[in-house]
């Protein structure tokens, strides 16, 4: 299985990045996206960080083993879109 690295974009001007040194093995890009969303839910529900005022401003910049960007997952993606509610 390919290994994906979940780099975290954060900071007041989104100018900071934590590089994931270990990565996770996942089946494909879609699985990587699902994994990212699960991490986001746990981070948002978990303890605060000195470095992050607003988790929802953050995003995961997911890279493959060749440090190529595969996906960007904004933390706000865990919130259902309003349109979904209205059409439901």
């Amino acid at each position, binding site marked *: 299985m390919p290994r994906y690295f*979940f780099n*975290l974009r*954060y900071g007041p001007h989104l100018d900071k990045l*934590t*590089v*994931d*040194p*270990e990565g996770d093995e996942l089946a494909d890009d879609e699985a990587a996206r699902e994994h990212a969303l699960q*991490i986001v839910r*746990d*981070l948002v529900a*978990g*303890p*605060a*960080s*000195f*470095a*992050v005022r607003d988790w929802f401003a953050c995003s*995961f910049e997911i890279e493959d083993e060749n440090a190529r960007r595969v996906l960007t997952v904004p933390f706000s993606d865990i919130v259902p879109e309003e349109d979904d509610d209205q059409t439901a």
Partner: protein
Amino acid sequence: MAHVQQSAVRNRLLKAMSADDFARLQPYLEPMDLASGQTLAEPNVRTEHLYFMEAGVTSITAEGANGRVEVGIIGREGVVGATPVLLGTDRAPYNHFVQMPGSALRIRADVVSAAVEESPSLRKLLLRYILTEMVQVRQTAFINATLEIEARLARWLLMCHDRTDGDELLLKHEFLSMMLGVRRSGVTLAMQQLEGAGRIRAKRGRVTVLNRELLEEMADGGYGTPEAEYARLIEGA
């Protein structure tokens, strides 16, 4: 084989004991190495031995549907298996495994039970140690209710640093994630904040403590209470 001498032990409880109490245990202390990942006590399994830690760190963990989380840490200040045996039972519902390799002096549980029946001073010392374990756990509950990831990480690194020689700790972020009950991304984020302020240096699986005072500041009151209680209760500070 020659018996272990009290002057040569590194375990702080064995050092703090009266010479008479040490002599009671001395013939039964068996030196052994502790390998990384080795289990010293399993949940709800009869305790056959206690382990006076000489070097390395043992984690007490609780397991749930989302994996296991560390709920206690024992190094050379302590003894694994004391709680059930001193409090009149023979098992505990937690897992105890070696998180950082080292060594211990192993002793049979029935020997310790008999020794504390004969010696009130030995019983008192070991009960006081159990009290310090309780203070540590209560401190963890306080921290988990109030403090940021960075403060938790700082406290945890200080606790490991207290229990190791030198300034280098071998720790993967994945492992820290389990120990702190925080996603690995949160650990990496916190590590970067501690590193940015010059408190530590973190490289693949390796954390070097550069400035303890700054780390204590970052721990934001989370570190120090159990450590001071230990010094007061065990070492008469």
